[in-house]
């Protein structure tokens, strides 16, 4: 089954970034096909060199390194959200495919479940 996760929150103030990724990793660990869509302030989860220790928090960007291990290959980032924040596609900590809203809409139509964090 195909589970899509929309990751829309910036890291650290709240637990959405962390708990969204944990849910996605769990779905993959339980053998489901997982796709991730970073959008809105969620694209900030993808910035390299985060210093979570400044807030004594769990470094969510390190959790992204685990995506490979869980065979999560479908990692997408909303191009408009990157542009609105002045972030270049090649400045991200992990490899993502930049997509637009139309592509996201089409891909979500094939998902068994869409989880929103």
């Amino acid at each position, binding site marked *: 089954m195909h589970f899509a996760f*929309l990751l*829309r929150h910036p890291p650290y103030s709240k637990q959405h970034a962390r708990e969204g990724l944990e849910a996605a990793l769990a779905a993959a660990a339980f053998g489901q096909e997982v796709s991730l869509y970073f959008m809105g302030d969620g694209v900030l989860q993808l910035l390299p060199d985060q210093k979570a220790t400044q807030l004594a928090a769990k470094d969510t960007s390190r959790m992204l390194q685990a995506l490979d291990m869980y065979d999560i290959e479908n990692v997408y980032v909303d191009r408009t959200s990157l542009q609105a924040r002045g972030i270049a596609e090649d400045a991200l900590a992990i490899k993502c495919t930049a997509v637009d809203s139309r592509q*996201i809409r089409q891909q*979500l*139509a094939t998902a068994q479940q*869409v989880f*929103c964090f």
Partner: protein
Amino acid sequence: MLHIINKATPDASLEQCLALIDPQQDAVLLVADGVLSALASYAYWPRGLAVFVLSRDIEARAINAYLAPHIQIIDDAGFVALTEQHTQSISW
């Protein structure tokens, strides 16, 4: 696709939801603080989109008289019916 929105504007959820909506096939259900986006003064819903609000959330907040004319009021059973009709949902 059924889009369920529980947040008042301004909020990123609304923008992101609107960017993904297909007004021909999708429906929007406003619940909790999301019902405030059903006010007539908030006019950003695309033409032709089906927009529903949950009656108990409208009544609690006493905003019945302020709703946009195309908004459809449903009860809890109507909410369930929407989830029966739409195989997919996103709660923003």
